[in-house]
């Protein structure tokens, strides 16, 4: 499967990665090359096979409903790019 420019722009947007005009041709070529490798999967018939999401196929363990965390805001926000009044700041959110 080979991608075109529109595909790559759409994927980059979904992934929120800025692509410069100059990057697009090389990115398109490399992604197409990877997809070509991936497409070798299509050679095998898997219609009767159930997908496998976790290798060990074990089941989820449940946690007791207990509060174990305390306020660590200062420590956690010490590494944040922008905070004020205990809030993380981002460019205006428009709904």
């Amino acid at each position: 499967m080979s991608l075109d420019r529109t595909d790559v722009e759409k994927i980059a947007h979904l992934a929120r990665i800025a692509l410069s005009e100059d990057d697009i041709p090389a990115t398109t070529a490399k992604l197409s090359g990877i997809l070509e490798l991936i497409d070798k999967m299509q050679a095998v018939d898997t219609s009767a096979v159930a997908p496998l999401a976790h290798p060990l196929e074990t089941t989820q363990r449940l946690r007791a409903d207990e509060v174990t965390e305390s306020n660590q805001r200062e420590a956690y926000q010490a590494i944040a790019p922008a905070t004020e009044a205990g809030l993380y700041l981002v460019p205006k959110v428009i709904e």
Partner: protein
Amino acid sequence: MQWEIVIGLEIHAQLTTASKIFSGSATTFGAEPNTQASLVDLGMPGTLPVLNAQAVRNAVKFGLAIDAEIGMTNVFARKNYFYPDLPKGYQTSQMDHPIVGKGYLDITLEDGTVKRVGVTRAHLEEDAGKSLHEDFHGMSGIDLNRAGTPLLEIVSEPDMRSAKEAVAYAKTIHSLVRYLGICDGNMAEGSLRCDCNVSVRPKGQTEFGTRCEIKNVNSFRFIEKAINTEVQRQIELIEDGGKVVQETRLYDPNKDETRSMRSKEEANDYRYFPCPDLLPVVLEPSFIEEVRGELPELPQQKRERFESQFGLSTYDASVLSASRELADYFEQVQQTCGDAKLAANWVMGELSSLLNKEGLEIEQSPVSAAQLGGMILRIKDNTISGKIAKMVFEALAAGEGDSADEIIEAKGLKQVTDSGAIEAMLDEVLAANAAQVEQYRASDEAKRGKMFGFFVGQAMKASKGKANPQQVNDLLRKKLEG
């Protein structure tokens, strides 16, 4: 053209747990921003989720209460999208294998008819944080305290045909989750939020029209208004030759209109896939039975019992069973006074209007169930009349006494039933109105009927309402006829 309205609701109920769905942070409402956001809630690199057992139990409770198939193996999936209130860039939710499958709810409409509404599914997921739009130098502030709060998203079938039905359904869900104790139902704090899927189609058409989703409607009143507004918009649009576009809209209660949410407009491609950090949740049949054993009497069962045990009407029974607290209050009044009908009349009548007027919940009622029941007992044993009872009730509400008996005693409201005393009083009344008595005696049957009321009024006035009305009637008739 005649239009048919088609409505389906997605209700997000915040599950009452001490800690979050995937972390040990507290879920308390109203804490200082980001003080209840742990490493996991913040999506710190390298952190991992572990599922809260209570969230699972609460979801199963709901499933059993709506007679649904329980997803004995249910799976968490990631819904991927970027938003500042979504720390990991994905919401952990359930897609193909929800914990609660198909079920149903019976809702009682205003005219007393019962309608069955299908529930497509209910799944567990984590809540997002909040964006605060106060101006921080042109920026928005993000509070992630709410991120990771457990939600049960309850998706209905598109079975509702009017805004009123939608409200009745939402109220039924609200009542049910509170009965079950799995959600506090506090809509002002966002504990129960509603997305309304609305479409219209010409009457008789079988396929659905294009729907719009109105996000986050947070009161029953707004559900009704938002749906009606949106229906109007869609009908006008179609009648003007336009087409409804499938989109997400926001209801603005100030302007009473819905508007398109542009931020959600981009072609959403959520790229759901099974969450690799969480394993399939496998429920044991013994666990299901254990939870079933914990279920309280549910609103519908209670309503049916009120009808059969107390002989109440469907409407009365459904009003009284709408909340667990109201039902408990009613039953306590009934037990004290031994008269379900009087108890129902007083709870739904005087008590309800008092609470409404004062803006109080039943738990905050100034008149306790024991007080009301005690008062009704005095009506039944003829100590007071219904009219006097209203005075006693008001006095109880005003805190003028601890019991009806105390108030009756203090205010001398005890009914007069001594026929000698009543006769003496009647003689005085008739003497004072001798002209009317003569007139009465000269009149025919039809006229007498009207005039009789005048003498009753005078007599009750003279007794300050305390004379037993039946005795007054009987004795008065005897004297006038005599």
